[in-house]
């Protein structure tokens, strides 16, 4: 039964990802992205990391997607008729191939845990303790960076308003 769900989620992830790349309508592509992200959340659940799954839904499915959709819908995407491919297509293909090769190499060289059937669950409390205990300094640094970004965004937005 679990396998069936795994394949369903996997198909959702891959199908959504393909949709992002292939669909012409940019909002439909964003919808594909949502499907893909939610599929990932489903796979997390199958791996018994509910916390990660829920956070995935909350952050990616919720907050990040809203920004993307907002941006896409408020710009006049439907009138965007021109071809999005440039004349750098061959270069892009080369880059993509290199990336793919790197991924495959990394995949092959990683030492995976032997027993796939056994899932080691990480208690939610441990994550919290690690985040605020051992990794407290990087965590705070990161939030400082985010705060700076936030303030910067506000300043830019205020400037634009003032110019008008």
């Amino acid at each position, binding site marked *: 039964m679990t396998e069936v769900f795994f394949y369903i989620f996997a198909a959702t992830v891959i199908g959504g990802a393909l949709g992002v790349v292939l669909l012409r309508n940019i909002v439909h592509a964003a919808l594909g992205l949502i499907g893909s992200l939610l599929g990932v959340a489903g796979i997390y659940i199958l791996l018994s990391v509910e916390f990660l799954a829920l956070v995935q839904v909350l952050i990616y499915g919720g907050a990040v997607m809203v920004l993307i959709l907002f941006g896409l819908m408020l*710009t*006049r995407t439907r009138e965007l008729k*021109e*071809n999005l*491919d*440039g*004349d750098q*297509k061959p270069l892009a293909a080369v880059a993509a191939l290199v990336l793919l090769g790197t991924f495959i190499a990394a995949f092959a060289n990683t030492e995976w845990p032997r027993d796939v059937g056994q899932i080691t669950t990480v208690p939610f409390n441990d994550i919290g303790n690690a985040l605020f205990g051992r990794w407290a300094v990087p965590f705070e640094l990161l939030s400082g960076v985010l705060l700076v970004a936030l303030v910067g965004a506000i300043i830019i937005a205020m400037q634009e308003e003032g110019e008008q």
Partner: protein
Amino acid sequence: MVTEQHDRSLEVVDIPINMGPQHPSTHGVFRMVLVLDGEVCKDVIPHIGYMHRGGEKLMEAMDFRQGIGYCDRTEYLAQFSAELGYVMAVERLMELEIPDRAEYIRVILTELNRLSSHFMFMGAFGIDAGVFATSFTYAFPQREYIQELFEEVTGDRLMYAYFRVGGLAWEVTDNFVQRVHEVLVHTRQGLRDLDELLTKNEIFMVRCQGIGAFTADQAIAYGLSGPMLRASGVPWDLRKDDPYSVYDRFTFEIPVGNHGDVYDRYLVRLEEMRQSVNIIEQALEQLPAEGPIVAEKLPRRLRTPPGEVYSKVEAPRGEWGVYLVSKGGDKPYRLKMRSPSFCNLSALREMCIGQFMADAVMILGSMDIVLCDVDR
């Protein structure tokens, strides 16, 4: 494969939104095009004329009695004021002397009409502000009592055709004074209800205050009148400054706003209703118990001498004026109505620019327009 070069800079587009003629908050078949930058109005283009029936021209083809019915239909929320303005114009041309009793009944009914019209405003304005019809249902039952009184007296709920040249169409009912007192009990309750519901409500205040503010100079420049003008701080009321009928026999107060915004217009109307109750009570005390209700020596067929006259009354929405030119005979040669709704509406664009879309709705609501009156 090279695509055409296009401008990479972000192009900001304003959204024109068509509001009306079937939008729930345009108070009839009014249409405006809002040019929105996000939620803020950059421009407002009002479109009127959906209700235009050529009322003025129609009335030129009718004798003076027939025209009264069209006054009702033009200002269908303040019918008695409209009738009074028209009837007074003809009376001035004919130099008629109106009996006291008729004048008092006219004042009582006109002030009751002001109450019913302002009740309508209170209800609709609450809906514009987003109260789920509660203000409406507080105002309307009380308005209904007034309507019932009108129906008992005139025979019709809306199109009274009761004020006639020279007086009134017929005598009031026997228990008229008592009935008015009964109605006033309900009116006071309605005023209390609405006052409690809206006036001090913080959300209502924050929605109204500072919105669509006009200074006294602006208001005069735009030719505003009535509560709109008084809210801007100009103590101009025709009942005080150019007393007609028997208004110079009453003591009352005229509320004048100090900020000129939507909230002041609401407060002015609320206070005006209290003053109307006050005037009605005084009029009921002074009302002669008996006496004629129609001027003496009134010919059966009304004919005016040639001449022109402008008569104006303080209608609930402002100055309702009738300009009448007669070349003799039983029909007006030219008739022009100065309708308060139309003149007040002209300030809409100026008030709305720079405000939020939701505020534009509130501003339009605070004008309390009657579309039939605007288009005629």
